[in-house]
């Protein structure tokens, strides 16, 4: 009796056909198991989800992928644009060679380097100071110079030659010397 029941149960089980829980995912699960066996490492994250959940996830996946591609593209584009602008800027802008130089020193570097010597002793005492890298002249000396210029104009004498009598300036002196 005991064996009869057992045989009946076995026969009934033999008549039942096996049904996979997810027929469409069968191939994937087989391939997954093959990959796991091959590499020995699990390279994918397995998500247990029904059909609608999977659809939502797929949508999210598409959006994040598109956003990532767009943002990486935007970043590369901006970097490329910035690099080209910076290289243009390097060619265009004069940079100071002195790393410790302040902005004022940079501005001062623009000034014309002239030494001013007025032979007239009265005028000479009016000059504020004479430095090698800067021209300094007070108002009275400037007025004196302007008067002399006006005088030269009126006398119609060679401007440069006569002016040299009042002050020696390397930029004026050289051409005259060569001429002589």
């Amino acid at each position, binding site marked *: 009796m005991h064996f009869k029941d057992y045989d009946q149960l076995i026969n009934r089980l033999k008549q039942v056909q096996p049904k996979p829980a997810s027929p469409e995912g069968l191939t994937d699960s087989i391939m997954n198991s093959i990959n796991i066996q091959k590499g020995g490492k699990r390279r994918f994250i397995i*998500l247990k989800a029904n059909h609608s959940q999977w659809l939502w996830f797929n949508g999210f*996946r598409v959006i994040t992928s598109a956003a990532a591609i767009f*943002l990486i593209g935007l970043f590369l584009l901006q970097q490329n644009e910035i690099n080209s602008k910076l290289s243009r800027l390097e060619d265009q802008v004069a940079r*100071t060679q002195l790393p410790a130089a302040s902005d004022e*020193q940079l501005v001062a570097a623009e000034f014309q380097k002239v030494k001013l010597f007025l032979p007239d002793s009265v005028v000479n005492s009016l000059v*504020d100071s004479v430095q090698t890298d800067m021209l300094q002249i007070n108002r009275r000396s400037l007025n004196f110079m302007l008067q002399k210029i006006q005088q030269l104009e009126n006398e119609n004498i060679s401007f440069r030659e006569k002016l040299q009598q009042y002050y020696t300036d390397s930029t004026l002196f050289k051409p005259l010397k060569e001429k002589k």
Partner: protein
Amino acid sequence: MKKIVIRTFVVLMAMFLYGCPDGGGPYQMYTKIRSDGSCYREFIRSADSAFVAGDTSRNPFPMKIDSTWKITYYKRMAGDTSRYANLPPNITYKKDSTEFTWFATAKKEYASVEDLAKSFRFDDSKWDSIVPDIALRKKFRWFYTYFEFSETYKPVNPFKRVPITDYLSDKEIAALYGEDQELYKGKNGYEIKSLLEDLENKADKWFNHSFYEELYAIYILHFDLFKGAPIDADRFAMEKDTIYKYYFKEDTVDMFEKDFDEMLDHHFHTKAFTSASTDEFEETMKNEFPDFMKYSEVELNYRMSLPGKIIETNAPFMNQDTLTWKVEENRFYFHDYPLTATSRKPNYWAFVVTGIVVILALVGLMVRRV
């Protein structure tokens, strides 16, 4: 009239020799723009002791000082290495054989660049009528925020009767009066010198012609002063071009050597013009003749900083992220002189968000369904 002309020539020569006619050198102007759009403007200039003592009539700055400007003073001694070390002094004082110079700094905060554009004026200088267009545009571009700054000085040429384009092309103007170096390409020093001399001659011709046209226009306007002239005002006006061609053409220096009244007397066979040349008429001429030298007394060494890194500018000098321009009337005599700069500041949060999105996308691609 000759007096005015000679005086003008002398001033022009002085400008050529000395560059800046004012004793304290160029105005040191600094503008700092912050990332929230607010900004401040600062001036540094050598001051006399009276101003330091509180005499505002000795204001060394190009704008009127009021309570919104914060003024500080600095006494520069010999051997100074501070930011004031290389600034040109106006007056040097001496006490116990020690020389020193006073420097004043005026600083004003603005809520925005629009506020700066609306309220800032060079109203205590010859530039009182110069109103630069100042604008700041902030552009959000995800990874970076871009700051586009521009300050444009409008043309000040008062001579409108003869277009400068009859004598110089736009490129030639940019080379002679501006900082454009395109015309110098492929030329050595001597060739550049020759080119500039040629441009200078053309500019002189334009100046002469403009000067003549303006002068003649005033003479036409006040023709009734020339009693006993053998012609009427209409005939006088018609003779304008003939006189210019006969007396001035191709000779750029003549304008400064000829006495205009004597020349008119000679042309019309009269003494009416020299007879009318009184001090009163001279004064009228001075008042009505365009003040073409008005703006030359001011010069700015303009420094500016924008938030972030500078990526584009037309400034000729840059030290770290501080830009420097030289602003004086020649540069905006005929055309706009725009000072432009663009900087970019990174938005770090945008980098973090992008990182998260990229990680999510990568993780999403790795997910498989059971």
